[in-house]
């Protein structure tokens, strides 16, 4: 009888189900995975080192490019760490705007995740549905910051500008009739808040649509139920956070337990799973979208009633307004100093974390009193999750590896940094 040995399978780095540049070395016994060795770093750009070479404000844009499907949450952790070290407080309206956009970002991220996860496991339609709603949220990003993805909207001291009073509209073209344009522009006739309000009215029904396609779908359940089970104790020991931890039944959400900005004013629930498998994590994320929708509605209501400043009025940190610079010498000097040198942050270190859509995204910032960070470490939730992948896929079939990668919500921008 011939000797039977395990064989090694290379998966990626260019594979549609690898969610980016993940290379897996799988040791297989037939179709059963014995060991998985993820090779990462193919998207390593040295973000943290780059940040050490630039004034604080110039690195905000790098944060967008870490987890590039939950852009503003990354910015949030970064600007929050600077604010804590500076010891400045952000205007209340800016805090509400941040919370609102954090939740818009969470929906953006979960839609991307749901679409990609669905397509990995064979559900094509849900991908198209998810991207339909993502488009509207991208428009919110664009309206507020001018960029559809890499917004650089949060700044130390607040947000870059107040919410716009009008939305960009579709222009007539030879590909669209007047009637179509009018229909598309209907929701865009008011302010950004009107547009978001309209979205939140529609969105719960959209989530119902995704659930109709997936939640009781036989194939979906066969592919996800009892796949990649993580016990609550193991999830904590493996540094898991966010929906992956909650999927295992651990009640832990920074928005509730260590509230930042105005999350303590918000009324929302935290869904948790029971079995800790891929299906529970799916249910948790879907419910999180509904809860985010609730939070956004509360923010809209508050923001409509309470106009006010969205940026700190302290020109040692925040650049003065352009018009002030025309007639005011001091404003001109402030602007010049901030643009050429930036502000210095007192020596010390701080760790600021936000509940990003994927889990706890934290920034450990060390300053030696200079105008640049001395050391910046971004704590990426996906990094810890991917590290646990080996344990999650052992004993599963090759096809389940794809389900597990999908359920961990892997994005290489943040893992490789």
């Amino acid at each position, binding site marked *: 009888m011939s000797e039977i040995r395990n064989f090694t399978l290379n998966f990626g780095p260019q594979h549609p189900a690898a969610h980016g540049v993940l290379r897996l070395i799988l040791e297989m016994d037939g179709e059963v995975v014995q060991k998985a060795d993820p090779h990462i*770093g193919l998207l390593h750009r040295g973000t943290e080192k780059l940040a050490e070479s630039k004034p604080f404000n110039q690195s905000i844009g790098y944060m967008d490019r870490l987890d590039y499907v939950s852009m503003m949450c990354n910015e949030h952790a970064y600007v929050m760490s600077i604010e804590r070290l500076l010891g400045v407080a952000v205007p209340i309206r800016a805090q509400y705007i941040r919370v609102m956009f954090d939740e818009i970002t969470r929906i953006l991220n979960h839609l991307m995740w749901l679409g990609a996860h669905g397509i990995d496991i064979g559900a094509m339609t849900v991908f198209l549905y998810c991207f339909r709603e993502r488009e509207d949220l991208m428009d919110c990003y664009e309206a507020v910051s001018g960029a559809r993805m890499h917004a650089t909207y949060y700044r130390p001291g607040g947000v870059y500008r107040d919410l716009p009073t009008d939305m960009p509209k579709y222009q007539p073209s030879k590909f669209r009739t007047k009637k179509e344009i009018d229909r598309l522009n209907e929701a865009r006739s008011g302010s950004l808040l009107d547009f978001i309000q309209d979205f939140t009215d529609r969105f719960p029904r959209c989530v119902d649509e995704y659930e109709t396609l997936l939640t009781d779908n036989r194939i979906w359940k066969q592919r996800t139920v009892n796949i990649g089970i993580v016990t609550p104790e193991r999830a904590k020991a493996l540094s898991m956070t966010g929906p992956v931890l909650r999927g295992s039944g651990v009640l832990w959400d920074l928005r509730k337990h260590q509230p930042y900005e105005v999350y303590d004013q918000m009324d929302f629930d935290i869904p948790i799973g029971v079995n800790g498998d891929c299906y529970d994590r799916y249910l948790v994320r879907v419910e999180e979208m509904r809860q985010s929708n609730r939070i956004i509605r509360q923010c809209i209501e508050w923001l409509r009633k309470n106009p006010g400043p969205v940026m700190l009025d302290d020109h040692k940190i925040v650049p003065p307004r352009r018009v002030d610079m025309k007639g005011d010498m001091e404003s001109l000097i402030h602007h010049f100093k901030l643009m050429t040198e930036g502000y210095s942050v007192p020596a010390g270190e701080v760790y600021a974390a936000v509940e990003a859509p994927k889990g706890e995204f934290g920034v450990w910032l060390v300053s030696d009193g200079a105008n640049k960070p001395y050391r910046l470490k971004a704590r990426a939730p996906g990094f810890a999750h991917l590290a646990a992948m080996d344990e999650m896929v052992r004993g599963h079939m090759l096809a389940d590896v794809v389900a597990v990668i999908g359920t961990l919500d892997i994005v290489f921008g943040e893992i490789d940094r």
Partner: protein
Amino acid sequence: MSAFIDPVETVSPPSLTRLEALRLAVIELGGAAVSALPTVAGEVAFELTAAALITVCQSLRDDPRCAFDTLIDIAGIDYLTYGTDEWSTHQATASGFGRGVVGRDGGLSTADAKVDALTADRRFAVTYHLLSVRLNQRIRLRVYCSAGEPPMVDSIVDIWPGANWFEREAFDLFGIFFRGHPDLRRILTDYGFIGHPFRKDFPLSGHVEVRYDAAKGRVIYEPVSIEPRILVPKVIRDDVRYAPALHGTPAVSKPNV
């Protein structure tokens, strides 16, 4: 289906008295091996001696007052240039001019004081961020690595299995060896990479660049053609307005003391 928990039942965020209780518990557990570090309000940070790392971490995880069940992060740091700025024009005139970096402590740039304290055995440190999901509290630990090359520190993989990749990352980027780590390989840098890129003496532009060589018909590595340059010089200013009182210690933290 997912279960819902009423938000009222959640643990409240740590209050000041609870932070103080945690500090006292850590001092009791660690004894002479731990010393408190300056932090901003609401944080707890300690420095550990390298020898006590394993025992203190073990008790931080198992003691009911600490119960740090989750390791959030491990980060290396290189203190080589801590407190040194990049201005080269201090003595531009006979009397010199300070570029406005005069600090609140009588005109002496705090940078000078910090550099003196820097010695070889205080260059690399590892920082651990721990979280207790049960008690809703956090702590940050700092351990200096042993002197010499390579800098070494004990691995805590046996205490928190999640430490595995974080330690690999610190090894890759800083060259810190973790004694007892089961699989200490590079993780983020390229296959066959030489050096540890996050060290302060590693240039930002790196040492090699790659391009496709048409004559050889393959991708080749060659020394970088980029001149290293500083776009915005690092300058240290002690602005009293933004010096929040760090807890229980001088306003300027000296990590090398």
